[in-house]
């Protein structure tokens, strides 16, 4: 046995102990709550005491676990695998929390943490519901603690413990023969995935997990309702929780979207990625459940649907975890959760089975007594249309989750299906139809009364908002310049209708606040929520259909041969290369790469990209701004790699968004101070440079009328050069000069072997100059993509308003006597 130096074993042992304690306490709490729930008044008291003490013990242990793991990361105890895998010394303080939830153990711990807090709140406030609800919460805590156990049951490892030591995980590694391995070898960790080094990544997982965790509470109340045969009571008690959960989960999902928008390079807040879908589907069901619960409270209808939606909502939280954590999604997700192998797969399957079985068995037991209203809903009633909306939410949830589950389905039935060519369109074309109906329902349903509504009342209230939104919608369609026709006219029309319906949602709910509710906050929650939801839809529709590629590359093909059909107007390529200090036109901007500055501590580089918009007539500068995207340089055996973080210029009405896709390798990034030397040339001329000469073999003037192969410019000077070095080796080069919409710009070409940059310029009338630049090193350049997202702020604003609406609803329900539990 070697006595190792410098290890901090005590803190890990405390962590190990707390894990076990949390597990056992959850077990005791589940049992005690179960006994208390079924006990009569006399027997109840001792069980109550045990149940509360054991759950609170669990809660304290989980919080303790949190602190212990944080201390291990904070103090850089790299003898622990978790710290070694997920952090490193140079990491900024604020990202230490991201390390925490990068790993699977930390995520489960975060989940258990919120569950513990919610459980403690429930003990205090759920009164007669305490025991059955806390039974469910305790079973949940039991499962979550078991994911952290990491103990062997015969040959199967149950869970993974975050406090394992490197030397126990890799006992054969030679470094552990050395008693001083910590000071000699394991001096630093592997660090945090750079995509997670973003402030959204610090705050969005806790919010998202609070959403996931709180979705358990309405589920627990539903189970409790079935168990205690109180089919009406649970709805009332669960309502504020369901509202809370829908609000927080919605916020968490959109914060995830904000993270994707700001740090992922696919340039958008939503890509129908499995991980995103998996978080949205429970939200859809939760919202459907809230609506059926409301119907039940007002009319007695839709109780069975409420049980179904609320249970299904939580099951989908578990199923999502299963999909995203066990690696069954395999090749389809860009999010890199690693599969934790078979043990977690079965572990999560078991958990899902238990949580499906609970409501099913209890429902079956009491199926005869679940009240059903025989009388039908009237078509003129609010409940009818709310139910339609809930069904629609269910259907869209099913559609999304079936598509997302394709890899899992493949695994089950041995197929090899995948979504084809246009993944986003496959989702969007259905969702745009859903949006139309859903937005219309959201606009109009509130104006219906429960049970029955007279046509006259309906039209008197709906007429004004309908006319106003029709006008706004028409204006948006006519002047909004929405012409996304990539997928045909039908889809474009659907987008326009959806936009109109979403505007209707916004206007109608704003009017409802004033004309029906008279601005009374007490009942305003739902209208505010719907108003925010409508704004989100408008923001989504506009920013998605009007997203504009600024870095349209229509000239990059010149070198590859003029006959290439790529890079034409209907199929622009996305990347543009910018040579240091050489302005290039992009959209309405002249864009210049002005340099870069390194931040050596993190291997981070900031790029200065200058955008100038000039008036086409007066040539005055209308707008000028600098965008500084950054990138991490990752050094490896195969050379340096770039991991890019987008930069953006935010305007109130649109965002210009840039990220770097390629950069010259930084080893060569010496200051490039050389200048172009220009010589006026004609065909057949020769220009000398330090190591040889350039022969102008061909110089032609072309325009789009006489040269159909010309890229999408109005006219051009094209050249064919032969560069001959003093060693007698010849190189071909084809710089050009383009004129597009009155702007002239050069398309430089390089002869890397000779460190030459060649450039054409037209000066005066038909005088062509050849520029030759000899770089001491290789040239400085970057390649980038740039997009514009219009009105994306509506999406963020809508999200915030929607969440506020949920919270207002929750607040007034908690205050109201009707909802007192």
């Amino acid at each position: 046995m070697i006595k190792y130096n410098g290890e901090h074993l005590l803190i890990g042992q405390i962590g190990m102990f707390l894990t076990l304690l949390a597990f056992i306490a959850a077990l005791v709490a589940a049992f005690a709550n179960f006994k208390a729930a079924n006990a009569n008044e006399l027997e109840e008291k001792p069980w109550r005491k045990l149940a509360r003490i054991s759950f609170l013990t669990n809660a304290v242990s989980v919080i303790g676990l949190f602190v212990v793991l944080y201390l291990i990361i904070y103090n850089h105890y790299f003898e622990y695998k978790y710290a070694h895998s997920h952090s490193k010394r140079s990491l900024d303080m604020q990202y230490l929390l991201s390390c925490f939830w990068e790993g699977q153990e930390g995520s489960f711990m975060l989940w258990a943490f919120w569950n513990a807090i919610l459980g403690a709140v429930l003990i205090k406030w759920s009164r007669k519901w305490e025991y059955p609800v806390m039974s469910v919460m305790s079973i949940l805590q039991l499962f979550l603690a078991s994911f952290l156990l990491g103990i062997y049951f015969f040959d199967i490892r149950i869970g993974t413990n975050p406090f394992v030591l490197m030397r126990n995980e890799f006992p054969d590694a030679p470094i552990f023969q050395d008693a001083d391995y910590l000071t000699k070898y394991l001096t630093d960790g592997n660090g945090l995935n750079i995509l997670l080094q973003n402030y959204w990544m610090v705050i969005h997982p806790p919010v998202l997990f609070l959403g996931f965790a709180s979705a358990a509470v309405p589920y627990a109340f539903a189970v409790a309702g079935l168990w205690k045969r109180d089919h009406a009571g649970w709805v009332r008690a669960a309502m504020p929780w369901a509202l809370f959960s829908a609000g927080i989960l919605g916020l968490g999902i959109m914060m995830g979207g904000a993270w994707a928008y700001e740090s992922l390079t696919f340039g958008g807040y939503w890509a129908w990625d499995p991980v995103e879908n998996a978080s949205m589907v429970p939200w859809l069901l939760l919202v459907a459940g809230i609506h059926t619960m409301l119907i039940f409270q007002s009319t007695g209808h839709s109780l069975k649907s409420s049980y179904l939606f609320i249970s299904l909502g939580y099951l989908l939280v578990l199923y999502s975890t299963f999909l995203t954590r066990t690696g069954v999604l395999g090749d389809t997700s860009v999010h890199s959760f690693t599969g934790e192998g078979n043990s977690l797969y079965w572990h999560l399957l078991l958990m899902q089975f238990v949580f499906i079985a609970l409501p099913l068995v209890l429902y079956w037991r009491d199926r005869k007594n679940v009240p059903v209203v025989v009388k039908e809903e009237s078509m003129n009633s609010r409940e009818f249309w709310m139910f339609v909306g809930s069904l629609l939410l269910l259907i869209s949830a099913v559609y999304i989750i079936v598509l997302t589950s394709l890899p899992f389905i493949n695994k089950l039935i041995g197929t090899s299906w995948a979504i084809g060519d246009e993944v986003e369109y496959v989702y969007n074309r259905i969702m745009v139809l859903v949006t139309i109906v859903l937005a219309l329902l959201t606009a109009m349903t509130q104006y219906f009364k429960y049970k029955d509504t007279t046509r006259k009342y309906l039209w008197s209230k709906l007429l004004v908002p309908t006319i106003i939104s029709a006008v706004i919608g028409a204006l948006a369609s006519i002047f909004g310049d929405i012409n996304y026709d990539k997928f045909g006219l039908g889809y474009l029309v659907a987008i326009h209708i959806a936009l109109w319906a979403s505007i209707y949602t916004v206007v109608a709910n704003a009017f409802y606040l004033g004309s029906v509710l008279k601005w009374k906050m007490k009942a305003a929650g739902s209208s505010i929520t719907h108003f925010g939801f409508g704004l989100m839809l408008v923001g989504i529709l506009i920013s998605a259909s009007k997203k504009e590629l600024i870095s349209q590359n229509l000239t990059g093909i010149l070198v590859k041969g003029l006959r290439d059909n790529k890079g034409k107007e209907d199929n622009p390529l996305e990347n543009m290369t910018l040579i240091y200090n050489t302005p290039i036109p992009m959209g309405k901007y002249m864009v210049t790469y002005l340099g870069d500055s390194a931040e050596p501590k993190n291997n981070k580089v900031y790029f200065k990209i200058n955008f100038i918009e000039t008036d086409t007539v007066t040539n005055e500068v209308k707008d000028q701004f600098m965008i500084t995207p950054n990138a991490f340089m990752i050094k490896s055996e195969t050379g340096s790699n770039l991991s890019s973080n987008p930069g953006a210029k935010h305007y109130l009405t649109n965002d210009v968004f840039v990220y770097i896709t390629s950069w010259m390798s930084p080893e060569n990034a010496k200051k490039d101070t050389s200048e172009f030397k220009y010589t006026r040339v004609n065909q057949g001329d020769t220009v000398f440079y330090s190591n040889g000469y350039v022969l102008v073999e061909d110089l032609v003037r072309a325009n789009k009328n006489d040269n159909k192969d010309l890229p999408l410019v109005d006219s051009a000077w094209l050249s064919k050069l032969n560069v001959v070095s003093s060693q007698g080796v010849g190189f071909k080069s084809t710089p050009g000069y383009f004129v597009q919409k009155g702007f002239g710009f050069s398309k430089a070409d390089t002869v890397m072997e000779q460190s030459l940059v060649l450039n054409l310029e037209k000066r005066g009338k038909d005088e062509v100059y050849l520029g030759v630049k000899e770089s001491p090193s290789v040239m400085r350049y970057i390649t980038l993509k740039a997009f514009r997202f219009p009105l994306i702020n509506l999406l963020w604003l809508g999200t915030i308003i929607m969440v506020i609406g949920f919270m207002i609803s929750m607040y007034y329900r908690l205050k109201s006597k009707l909802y007192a539990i």
Partner: protein
Amino acid sequence: MKKTHVLGLVFIAASIAALLTLMDDISTYDSVESARRKEGKFVHLIAKLDTTKPVIYDPLKDPNYLSFIAVDSLGSSTEVVYRNAKPTDFEKSQRVVMKGSMKGEVFECKEIILKCPSKYTDEKVAKL
């Protein structure tokens, strides 16, 4: 029949219709050989980057042209052309999933998903 039942049926019919429209968009995971057999059809090709052959990407000449040789697990290989920038960590990838179709001898790729070795792999420690 109650209205809600009718409604339910309508919705079920609608969702079946929605799922049926998918049939056109379903593609499959393929090897190089089976992708060759389906020339022109959109497939997901699972393969590895052949690191012994050069990867061609010169952003100065054309930032939207990446070409390389991919080898699948059965040993067949094909040239791949991807008209976009070279993805981060491309050379480090263990496996690439390429969405696109065979055009003659070349696989025209529309999207690449890289499977990189998790940087928390154990090899590193074992090597020390």
